[in-house]
Structure formats: structure tokens, C-alpha cells
């Protein structure tokens, strides 16, 4: 099986680079083909990269608190651009302030993200989810 391609990046005007560099190292190490767009990535840049590389998943980071604004309509935009079935994950400090995880989950699920992670995300289990989700979508979609 060819390795699963994933697109990584930090959305919006967000400059937090450390987690992003670690995610790149981690997922590469786990056998994913990682396309890392770094920080300050727009929705369209994510989607361009996903289309170009035929990625199975896009992993969006938002740390700085504007995630709620920056991520709004992400899935819709994917649909518009013809990759509506792509796996979408989001993680980080996703809202301004300290709010209930369940509330944050719901907020981002409603934007069309498949899975939503806090800053305490256990990367090992993220990798497992990701492998499973990519495999699942791979079959019917392409």
C-alpha cells in the first residue's frame, strides 16, 4: 500500500511553528507522506496543496485563538473545490480562552471537520485514527 499523503499547516495569521514542526517529524516518522505548508496558511492554500498532491487528509492547526474565524466554511470550500470527501482534522488551542472541550468539538464538527483535537492530543492515537480514516475514505472515493 502506498503511504498516505497528508497536508499539514497552521491556518490564518497564526505563527505558532513549534507544534507544526513536531507534527511534521512525528507523522513522517509514522510513515505518512507529509506535505507541510508551515504557518500562516489560507484555506485555499491547504486545498491547492491537497489537490496537487492527491492527499487523503488535511490536518489544520490553529493555536492563536482565531481558529473559529479562520476555519469557518472549510468543508464547504473543499466541496466547492471538488475535494468534498477529504479527511479534515483540526487541532490546537481552537478558540479564544478556556472553554469546554465538548463545546469546541461541536463547533468544529459543525464546520465539517472529522476530528477535533485539543493541545493535549495524544499523537499516537491521532496517527491510528488517521490511518483508519484515510483507509476508509480511500475505497469509495477514488
Amino acid at each position, binding site marked *: 500500500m502506498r503511504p498516505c499523503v497528508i497536508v499539514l499547516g497552521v491556518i490564518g*495569521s497564526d505563527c*505558532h511553528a*513549534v507544534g507544526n514542526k513536531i507534527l511534521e517529524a512525528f507523522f513522517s516518522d509514522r510513515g505518512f507522506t507529509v506535505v507541510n505548508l*508551515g504557518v500562516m496558511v489560507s484555506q485555499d492554500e491547504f486545498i491547492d496543496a491537497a489537490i496537487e498532491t492527491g492527499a487523503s487528509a488535511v490536518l489544520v492547526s490553529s493555536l492563536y485563538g*482565531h481558529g473559529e474565524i479562520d476555519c469557518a466554511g472549510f468543508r464547504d470550500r473543499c466541496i466547492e473545490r471538488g475535494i468534498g470527501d477529504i479527511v479534515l482534522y483540526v487541532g490546537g488551542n481552537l478558540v*479564544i*480562552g478556556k*472553554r469546554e472541550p465538548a463545546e469546541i468539538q461541536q463547533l468544529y464538527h459543525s464546520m465539517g471537520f472529522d476530528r477535533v483535537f485539543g*493541545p*493535549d492530543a495524544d499523537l499516537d492515537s491521532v496517527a491510528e485514527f488517521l490511518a483508519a480514516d484515510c483507509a476508509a475514505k480511500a475505497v469509495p472515493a477514488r
Partner: protein
Amino acid sequence: MIFHDAPISQAELSEQQLEVRSSWPTGAEVNFDESVQFHRELDSSLNMAAALTAADAQGAVLVQPRAGVALLSEHIRLLTYLQDHCDLLPTTIDAYTRQNRYQEAEKGIARSEESGHSLLNGFPAVNHGVAACRSVVEALSKPVQIRHGTPDARLLAEITLAAGFTSFEGGGISYNIPYTKDVPLQRSLRNWQYVDRLVGLYEAAGVRINREPFGPLSGTLVPPCISHAVAVIEGLLALQQGVRSITLGYGQAGSYVQDVAAMHALRELGHEYFTEAGFTDYELTTVFHQWMGGFPESEARAFGVIAWGAAVAAMGRATKVIVKTPHEAMGIPTMEANRQGLEATRQVINMLSDQPPLDAPEVQAEADRIKSEVRAVMTRVAELGSGSLLDGTVRAFEAGVIDVPFAPSRHNRGKLLPVRDLNGAVRIYEPGNVPVPPEVMEYHRACIAERAKHEDRPPCFQMVIDDIYAVSKGNLVGRPK
């Protein structure tokens, strides 16, 4: 080491000012002469430079939070609440404004108004404009500083200085390399010369505005020599443009010997380079940032990190300390959480401020190492710039002579690799092109080898990753599992 970067000429400045002030409607509100008048009439207790100089003379350590929300009235409420618990106030700017995305900031304001809570991570000062910003300054009884992360802060400076803020954080390197992805250094340095020149105009008009290069950079395993070199350069660039009150900063690295040494060295290096460059009539103070890397999620543990940072600030006799909150790992703090960070910090500062600063032989030895590294870097910068500090800086970054770990910018080499030693001090494993003097590099390598042996693994990127997570997981050195 002679640099002859000239102040921006009045003509060039005026031309740029026209353009800058018309880049967003609120720019039109700026009137320099009237603003000077406004500053002159401000109570002297509201002047940041004066407060810092007075504290420094007394050996006091002042306490300052970070804080900013989207809406004007909420922002005033927030700072009014905090001012009883700190010495100096901030106004932290939101991240759209930092990228000059005023349209998006406008949207953030609107959505915050709708939803009833701030959807921005700071106060969009440009969108609010001069009059609104003045109402912030006027509502408060402590000096207020603009804190941000803006590579092109010209309009922000025009508006907030006109509004009566008396201190402005940042610099052409420190607000570019850690905060952006693709802004050329040359450009940000030039834009910050504008800001410094503007501060110089206020200075010339008798209004002292404090300038503070952002010390912590990426906040992540930054060796003191790197951030100190940046601090010295930004200090010099500011002095060249007429700034006279400078606060050099440093972010806690975690080893108290190293951190106290770094605070000593920072002050000494500042004076060394500033006087060598012929400046005498400046005021130099320092700022220590409590731990700038990832925080533990447990609030109790966060209190531990905060209080320990306060202790080191006092042991290193920073003029002020920038305070974190027990919510740090989670998100922008509530005002109560912010207050709690201030109270814990104040308690420790007070308990320590009567006590003598730490001075021990190892502190001196570490400070000497830091100074010799910074001197080596500065010598290269001077060579590369052949007389221009700005050019030398640009070339130094191109060449990796200055190299900030974990910075997002493309204009940073990213070849330097730091890692902690056995005692928790940040050491340089791979210097890249940073001209660390051989005997100091040998010391770094020996320290790291000692750790590697102790952990029975070679120094590797996993070791660095372990170090990055360590504090948030309750340690300092990232030990293998």
C-alpha cells in the same frame, strides 16, 4: 565596531507617513503636534520610561501582564481590573492587526459584538483609532505599553503613540523572524526604523517613549547568545533613530544559573555596545519573560512555573517581569486568571526584592560565555555590514550567523540546533553558521555529551522534542521514557 546607519531623513519619513496614514481610515486621525501636547499633559506617573528608570534605580522589579480583547469597553474594563494588581499595563494587539489585515480585524470586532465575547486574541488598536485608544490611556492610572508581533507596525505606532501610549514593544528582527513566514528582513528592519524614528521625533519634542525589543523570540530553547545579539542590534538600531529609553528583554530558559547570568550579561552587553557606538544619553532597563514555551495544563503546575519565573526575575534583577497566567496552556486568560498570575508573581517578587540578586562564580562563568558568544556574533555582523548594522543584520540572517531555533520565517536559516544539558541549561548542539567561539563550543559539546551519556542515547532530534515538551509535562530536561 562603527556603524553609520543614518536616521531616516525628515523628507523620506514625511513621505512614508503620508502613505502609511492613508492605508486605513483611522490613520487620518493622527496629528503629531497635538499628540505631543497630549503626552506633555499626561501625568508623569503614566510614562513608562520614567517608571522603568525609577524602578531600576531602586532595584525594584515591576510586574506587567499581557492583555487585550476585541472591544473597546471590554478592553478598558479588563485593564481597569488588572491595574490594581500590577505596576505596568499592556495592550496586546490581535493577530490580524499584526499582519495588517485590518479588514479581518474589523470582521473580528463585528463578530465579537454579536457573540458577546471576544473572538480576537488582542485589541485591534488600528481599527479602533486614535480617539478610542486615548480613552484607554485616559481611563487608567498606570503606564500602558503596546505589545504585539507586527513586522510592519508603522500605522500601529502612529496611532497608538498619538493616543498616548508610552511604550512600544518589538523590532525589525524580533517581530519578524518568530512571527512571520515570508517577510524579508530588510523590509521589516526598514519599517521598524520608521517606528524608531517616530519615537525619536517624540523624544526630540521632549516626550520620552520607551522601546522594548522582544527578547524571547520563538520562546523555545533559544540560546541566550542568539536573543542577546538580536536585543543588542535592535537596541542600537533604535538608538540610531533617536530612541533614548530602551528595555532589553530575555525569555526564561529554565536554568537559574543560566538565566541570571543572561540577565547580567544582557545589561552589560547593552551598555558595552551602546557606549561603544557613541551613545551616552540613553536609559537602559531590562525585562524578564516568565517561561515562554509550552505550559503545563494543570493550573497548580502553571502556578509553579509562574512563581519560579518570578523568583528568577528577582534573582536576576530584571527591571520588570512579564507575567503568565494559570490558563496559559489553554487559551487567552480570563481577567481573574490574569490577576492570579500577577498575584503569585507579586508575592514572590516582594519576598525576594529585598534580597540581594544572585551572584555566584558559576553565574559569572556563564555570563562570560554568553558575552563572548555575542561578541563573536556582533563582530561577524559588523564585518558583513561593512558599516551598516542593518545590512549586516540582513546578511547575518542570510548566512545563518544569527539563527533562531523554531522560527517560522523563511529568512531564518534554521540550522542551529539547541538542546538542554544535564543541568537544564540550553546548549548549542549544532551551531550551524553561528560563530560560537571554539572554546565555548567545546563547552557546549561537553555539556551535551555528558547528558547524552547520562541518558544513554546520542543527542538527536527526539532529545530536542523531549526538551520542548518537558516543562508542559512537568520537568525541565526531557528525559527518555
